[in-house]
């Protein structure tokens, strides 16, 4: 066995896994705080990326574009809370889930209505095909760069959750709505925070994925890759989203390269789902999810 080749595939897998984690993170934030699986997360990634790239195309400076897009995602969060979450408060989670499906189509349509659907080119100044060598293994520069962004985002989020008053309120809401209300934490404000944060995470994911694949409609389907990541990592865990992403990224690349020879290539596309299925059978709450204990 060629170990350098193995390392190359392995590291490549880890790095692309980070990209999946980035998308999964948005799901986890919303699921943690409200128990809702946000079907519209992929659409939010598309919307953020489209807004970003179109503003750049208009000649707005990069930093200002970033700031405006963050503002737009916060407005979107406020809109979602007012129009969708507030009227549906206390409804079954399945109803909220259905509402996010509607939201998904709304955002997809709205994004393309105002920004058009032509493919946007996002150049972050990093050559996609440049690589550097470690020993005999080639590591893609762009992927390393994306991993660094994702890593710092996770770090900032964890610090925010752990050490700020708002972060503590967010965790409180995630743990128990009733108790959070009783100590005076307003759910509606917290939901705006959560959806804004998920929007900003969607922006980062959109920019990174957009510069890899081009900013186009297909970006919203990267959300599909997040599902096995969530099942493996657990829906309620930020570290779970990271580890889950790494497992999926590594797993699919290694399977493609090493199992492909025996059972045919192209297994990259379904392998993560099979991993997820196995995890579901052994540990339904995911590797890092909270174990669900019901008193009977």
């Amino acid at each position: 066995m060629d170990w350098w080749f193995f390392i190359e595939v392995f590291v490549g897998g880890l790095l692309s896994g980070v990209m999946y984690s980035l998308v999964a993170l948005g799901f986890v934030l919303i699921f943690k705080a409200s128990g809702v699986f946000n079907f519209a997360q992929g659409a939010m990634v598309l919307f953020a990326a489209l807004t970003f790239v179109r503003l750049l195309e208009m000649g707005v400076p990069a930093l200002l574009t970033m700031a405006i897009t963050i503002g737009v995602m916060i407005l979107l969060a406020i809109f979602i809370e007012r129009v969708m979450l507030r009227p549906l408060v206390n409804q079954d989670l399945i109803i909220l889930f259905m509402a996010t499906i509607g939201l998904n189509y709304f955002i997809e349509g709205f994004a393309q209505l105002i920004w058009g659907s032509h493919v946007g080119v996002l150049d972050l100044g990093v050559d996609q095909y440049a690589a550097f060598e470690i020993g005999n293994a080639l590591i893609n520069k762009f992927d390393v760069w994306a991993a660094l962004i994702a890593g710092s985002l996770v770090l900032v989020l964890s610090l925010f959750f752990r050490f700020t008053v708002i972060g503590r309120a967010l965790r409180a809401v995630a743990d128990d709505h009733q108790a959070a209300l009783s100590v005076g934490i307003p759910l509606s404000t917290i939901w705006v925070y959560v959806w804004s944060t998920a929007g900003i995470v969607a922006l980062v994911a959109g920019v990174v994925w957009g510069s890899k694949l081009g900013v186009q409609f297909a970006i919203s389907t990267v959300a599909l890759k997040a599902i096995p990541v969530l099942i493996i990592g657990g829906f309620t865990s930020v570290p779970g989203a990271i580890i889950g992403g790494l497992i999926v990224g590594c797993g699919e690349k290694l399977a493609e390269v090493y199992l492909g020879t025996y059972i045919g290539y192209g297994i990259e596309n379904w392998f993560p789902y099979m991993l997820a299925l196995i995890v579901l059978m052994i540990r339904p709450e995911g590797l890092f999810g909270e174990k669900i204990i019901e008193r009977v």
Partner: protein
Amino acid sequence: MNVNAKNNKSAKLEVLMDIKDISLSFGGLKALQNVNLHIQKGEILAIIGPNGAGKSSMLNVISGIYIPQKGVVEWKGKLRKKIAPHDIARMGIARTFQNIALFRGMSALENILTGRNILMKRNLFLEALYLGMGRKQEEEHRQKAEEIIDFLEIQSIRKTPVARLPYGLQKRVELGRALALEPELLLLDEPMAGMNVEEKEDMCRFILDVNEQFGTTIVLIEHDMGVVMDISDRVAVLDYGIKIADGTPDEVRSEQKVIDAYLGAG
């Protein structure tokens, strides 16, 4: 437990909350009918009654979660209007729940700190830098939380995630979180349910201490009659949504209607 000391407390008759002739129903079910109840400042008031008598409904009317269809609630002499659930804490009303509602992922200390939520100022920038105001604020609140931890004698578990604590201690942490609000009125929904004798005695002691040391007015629902008669200044009895008695523990104990309600006679 020194009960007599309590009863000698100088009777200062200031009404904190006055509930006038309220009726509450859910569809066809009449949960409360024409109930009058006042809460005096500084007292420990117990609401008792058989299952389904409307005790929890009453507690929710007091806290403002339920709005009665008929009648009014006055808070400190002023008519109380409909309030958002998260504003109840701001009025100075804290509560614990029948089924413990703690922030399970947090430690005991963090739970109590979160109880101070409404007293904290939010400034993301300062907090992020952990500087100046942000730092001073966090330290102040932490000190208050530590005082509550000392008071409830839970120093040894302050860093333990609450989900891992035994039931009795979880109840105690929940009480701590409610105290962290520095409430004027503390509502306890079955604070002793499911506890063993020792835990009950501890809880009784804490409730009395809170009342005496902080002057907090306490309204509690409890099934254990021994406990109720021991610690309450006043007892209100509900049966089928109607208040059938209201008075000192001794008065209530000898009331024929109460005896009937509990023994199922009549």
